[in-house]
């Protein structure tokens, strides 16, 4: 029986990796993937807690998170396509017009 803490630690590490990815990646697609990583880390924690508590709520939560992730991927990727079409670049640092 693997203790709950181990799963949480793995989830925490993956989450942090995703966080670093969001901050450092210049490629919008990589940033998106890093966000998916963070969502997945949350999923892992949810499932682990669910197992620990013997309650299925966590599973449903993960289900919802997956839905959100799918929706986010669809909209986000179409934004990227539109962006690329207009600016011919997927570098997030070149998308910086939204400032004063």
């Amino acid at each position: 029986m693997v203790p709950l803490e181990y799963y949480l630690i793995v989830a925490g590490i993956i989450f942090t990796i995703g966080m670093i990815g969001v901050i450092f990646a210049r490629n919008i697609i990589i940033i998106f993937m890093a966000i998916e990583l963070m969502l997945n880390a949350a999923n892992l924690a949810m499932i682990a807690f669910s197992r620990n508590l013997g309650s299925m709520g966590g599973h449903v939560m993960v289900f919802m998170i997956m839905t959100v992730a799918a929706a986010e991927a669809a909209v986000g990727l179409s934004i990227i396509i539109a962006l690329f079409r207009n600016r011919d670049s997927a570098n997030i640092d070149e998308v910086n017009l939204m400032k004063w």
Partner: protein
Amino acid sequence: MELAIFILTSLVAIVAALLVILQRNPIASVMYLVTTFVAQAILFIQLRAAFIAILQVIVYAGAIMVLFLFVIMLLNLRREDFGKDIKLKYKPLAIAFAVVLLIETLVVINASMIPAQPGADLPATFGSVQGVGRELFTTYLYPFELTSVLLIVAILGAVVMAKKKL
């Protein structure tokens, strides 16, 4: 045995996750991300979340990441497409932040008084399609129906964003 599988899969997951963000080739990133997802699916099975594990593969690996791949290929993004590397001025600080975040997470996990896992007394339907389905359609019916609205909106949004001319 169980612990060995856990350590192995979680190591794979973590290393693959690291490689996701360290790769400069987006296709390779996608492949590593898929690896992470599959590894996590194995962890899910260990946690008796069979349905969610398979969903993880179908939805994340089979659908979302294919979408990523598809977009990357459609735009034909290669390394040179990311322009000059504009340096983030506070890179060391950001790394320090990340480390602090990790430490904080570990501290919180360490400090929490988590009760021992209930053993084998889980119901037989725990984590099965039937169990998750029952929860979805009874307790969480309302949010479940709302997810359909969310998906519709996302589809419409994606179409509107991506189409050149409607």
